[in-house]
Each structure stands twice: as structure tokens, then as C-alpha cells.
């Protein structure tokens, strides 16, 4: 079963850049000067790579958040990290700084994390429930502030903000992917470095503490690493929901193994899932469907099916 999934996924990843609205004949594709070659190298390939990295980050980030917060519902989205990015993008657009919107989005995401940490540090011990509630409250605040931005914006600006909130994988060239790759590498390094401690966290906070682990420091470092990567991802693509929720749950059902063994599969299959959703988005409609719509359309029913099957 696992091998079958792996083979299907690898084929999908290889095939994905060849499909799209413009057909790319193979004989044209191999000529470096042809239009087809340009489309493939400058649009298709970066797009698939972007989808893979973003999907991987969102899924792995979801898994880490679920462990750190002891809550199967928590993802970087639940905590307002993505809403922070969206709000700041809206601010950039209204201020006429649309060109710098990725930078604003990243700042928005990181600021949210810093606010969370600042609030959390007012409590003596590390308290995941409080942190989660603060995140949810921040999310509502951001949503309201976003409404203010809509109210203040012109029709054109409103449309730009709306497009961002729908999520998009439109990208030209590999320039922006470099930053995302660096953020991904940072996250993977942090997780690799703390792998043993992460395993102890899978038992309980008390257990991890008794094994000499500084639980608070560990949790904050993990959350920080995830937030940097998610901030970078959201700044390029806008908020894309559901990946961080569905993929870790699906893998837990499929693998029946502890979460520490799901870290690599989470990243990989999160990436594959978003590549697949993007393929659907590009193939179904004449105009490309927003990617966030497809992930939720595909993800929500499948997630409910999984939950129902798990109950039996």
C-alpha cells in the first residue's frame, strides 16, 4: 500500500509540469529556444516546485503544531500566523507598496508569532491551551482588521486583496523559490537537530521534562522554525488551507506509527497533495481555479470520510 502511494506520487511529480492549459509538444520542448521550452522552464517547473515546497511546509508545520499544542485541530492557520500575513499584505496593497507585499506578509506572520510568545511568557509555565486561545483571538482580530482594510480600499485594491486571500501559485522563474528553499532547509534542520527531544514530547510534557529536556525552549524553537517557513510560504502564495490538517491525519491512519516517523512522509505527501490540487485547478476550468478553493473542496469531504472510517 505504502509502496503504491510512493510510486503514484513520484509519477505525479514527474508528470505534473507537462500538463496545463497550453499543450507542450515533446519535440518542441527539447529545443532550448522554443516557446514550449520557455513555458516549461520558467512557468511550469517553478510552479510545481513551489506547490511541492509550500504543501510540504504546511503539512509538516501542521504535524509539528499538533504535537506541540496537543491538539489535532491546530495548524499554523489556527494560530493566526496566516491571518497576520494576509492582513499585512492588505496593508501593503493599500499603502501602494504592492510590490513589497511578500516582505509585508512575512513580517505579518513573524509579528504574530512574537505577539504569541510575548503573551505566553507572561504565564509562568508553558501552557499550550492558553497559547492556542490567544492565537484564535488574534485570528479574529486580524479578520476584523482585514475588513477595515477592505472598507478603506478602492475597488481595484479590494480585488487584489481578495485574490491574495484565495491563494495562488502563479510564479515566474526560480528567484522567489530560493528564499522558500532556505526557510524549508532551516525548518528541516531544526527538526532534525531536536528529533530525540521531539520523540520525548510525543509521550508527555512531564515525561520529556524528566528526561532532562527544556520543554519550553524546545516548543518555542519548533514553533519559531515552523512560523518562519509558513511565513515565507504564505508571503508567496497567500493562505492555502486544509493541507496542514488533512495530510498528517491521513498519514497517521495509513502508517499506524508514531508521529516522529511521519515527519518525512508528512513533508513529502503534503507537497504531492498540493501539486495534485494545483494540477486539478489548472486542468478543470478555463480560468485557473484558486488553489485554496481546490484544497478545501478536495480536502474537506475526504477528511470527513477518514473520520467516519476511523470511527468504525
Amino acid at each position, binding site marked *: 500500500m505504502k509502496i503504491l502511494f510512493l510510486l503514484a506520487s513520484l509519477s505525479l511529480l514527474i508528470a505534473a509540469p507537462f500538463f496545463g492549459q497550453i499543450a507542450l509538444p515533446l519535440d518542441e520542448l527539447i529545443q532550448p529556444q522554443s516557446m514550449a521550452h520557455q513555458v516549461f522552464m520558467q512557468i511550469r517547473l517553478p510552479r510545481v516546485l513551489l506547490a511541492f515546497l509550500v504543501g510540504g511546509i504546511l503539512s509538516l508545520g501542521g504535524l509539528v503544531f499538533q504535537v506541540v499544542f496537543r491538539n489535532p485541530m491546530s495548524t499554523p492557520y489556527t494560530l493566526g500566523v496566516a491571518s497576520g500575513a494576509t492582513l499585512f499584505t492588505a496593508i501593503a496593497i493599500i499603502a501602494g507598496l504592492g510590490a513589497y507585499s511578500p516582505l509585508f506578509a512575512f513580517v505579518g506572520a513573524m509579528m504574530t508569532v512574537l505577539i504569541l510568545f510575548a503573551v505566553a511568557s507572561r504565564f*509562568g509555565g508553558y501552557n499550550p491551551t492558553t497559547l492556542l486561545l490567544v492565537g484564535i483571538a488574534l485570528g479574529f482580530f486580524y479578520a476584523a482588521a482585514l475588513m477595515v482594510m477592505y472598507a478603506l480600499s478602492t475597488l481595484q485594491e479590494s480585488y487584489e486583496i481578495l485574490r491574495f486571500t484565495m491563494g495562488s501559485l502563479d510564479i515566474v522563474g526560480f528567484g522567489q523559490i530560493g528564499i522558500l528553499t532556505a526557510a524549508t532547509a532551516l525548518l528541516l534542520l531544526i527538526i532534525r537537530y531536536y528529533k530525540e527531544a521531539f520523540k520525548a514530547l510525543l*509521550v508527555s510534557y*512531564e515525561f520529556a521534562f524528566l528526561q532532562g529536556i527544556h520543554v519550553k525552549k524546545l516548543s518555542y524553537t519548533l514553533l519559531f522554525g515552523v512560523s518562519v517557513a509558513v511565513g515565507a510560504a504564505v508571503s508567496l502564495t497567500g493562505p492555502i488551507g486544509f493541507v496542514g490538517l488533512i495530510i498528517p491525519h491521513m498519514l497517521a491512519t495509513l502508517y499506524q506509527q*508514531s*508521529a516522529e516517523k511521519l515527519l518525512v512522509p508528512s513533508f513529502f505527501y503534503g507537497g504531492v497533495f498540493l501539486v495534485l490540487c494545483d494540477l486539478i485547478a489548472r486542468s478543470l476550468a478555463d480560468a485557473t481555479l484558486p488553489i485554496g478553493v481546490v484544497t478545501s473542496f478536495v480536502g474537506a469531504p475526504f477528511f470527513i470520510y477518514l473520520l467516519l472510517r476511523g470511527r468504525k
Partner: protein
Amino acid sequence: MPLHITDYSDEILHDISFALEAGCHLCILGANGAGKTTLAKVLCELIDSDAVTIDGKSLRHMHGTARAKAINYIPSKLEIFDAHMRVEELLALSHFDTTLHIGDALERLRITHLKDHPCKTLSSGESQLVLTASALLHGARYTLFDEPTANLDPIRMRTLFHLLADDTVLQSKIVITHNLELAYKLGFDILYLEAGHIRFHGTADRFFTQSQLDALYHGSVKNLGEHVVVSL
């Protein structure tokens, strides 16, 4: 290397001070709600305080492996977030005493067959034995056991009694229990808590005299010489 707690008080515990020499053992007894588990959590720093020192060093300022090797606490129930984790994987996480192999620890508790089971399939008694195996592998200088026999059948209880009585891997054992027969047979020094105060601290011989028992248990515990029983 003595363990010291000095003048500790909070909402539950009041004026707690005592010392335990390295290599000596202790049983903590007391009614439900007397503060036994709270005391255990204070001793192992799960509850923050400046009151506990080991070998003259404040436990609060001990970190990482040094703290882990100094003191360990085994709860009465295994609480595990990720129940897909297998028993062997769980034990590997607390494997500080490398002179002891995981297989040997499982063998001593007669639970070798559980090695590859996911933790979610364990019964409460089995998980208690797994926790005890983790205490052996951890090998801290001071190990606190919170109700180690609470969920065990008579045969398992005996296995565990012999392990607590005869084990030489763990330097100092602190056993919290309601099982007076267990405390009587172990013969460790007794610390009796009542409403957060230390009501008795001394040898088992002194504690298990009928007059002392009557004073603490109002006639519901009888010392029959060979056994201590609850009189229903």
C-alpha cells in the same frame, strides 16, 4: 549525596522539610488528598521551587542530563499523547543507564512479550510495568514511584514487590502507596502526610506499632505480626 527539601509550602503542602541519604529508601503514606503526589512533583521539580537540593545543588538550577540522572518520577498512569509509539521506542527514550539493556529490563518485569506492542494496546497494569521498566533503564539516583501497584493483579504485585525490595540498580527509591502491606514488607523509612503536614517521619518498626497505627488510622489497620491488614 543527600536529597533535601527545606521549608516548602504551597496551597496543598505546609512546612515540608526532610532529608534522604543516598542509598536510603522511603515510603510516603497518607490519606487521599494528603498531598503525596504534589510532594513527589515538588521533589522532582515538575512543580517549580527553590526548596529542593541534591548534593547541595539546587535542583532548579540543574539542567539537561544532570537533572535527569539525579531524579526521576514514575507516575501511576502512563499518559501518552502519541499512542502509536511502541513499548521499545518508549523505553529507548529514558535509557540513560546503558549498562542495562532494554531486553533485560523487560525480562525482570516479565513483560518481554510487550516489546513491540503499541502503547495504545496496553492495559493499565501492563503500562504500569512498562513504566517501572523505564525507571530501571533511566537509573536516576532518586526514583519516585507513585502508586506503583495500583493496577496490578496479585502475581504482578509480587513481581513488583520483589523488584522494589531486591533491586540494586536504583540507588534510592521513594515509593508512594496506599498499600500498607507493601510498605510493611519493604521496611523502608516512612513519611506520613496528613492534610499537607508531615505527621510522622521515622523507621518502619516505629510506624507499624499498633498504637502508632491506631493514632493515624483510627483502628482501621491491624498489625497481625506477619501481615498488616485493613480491618473492614
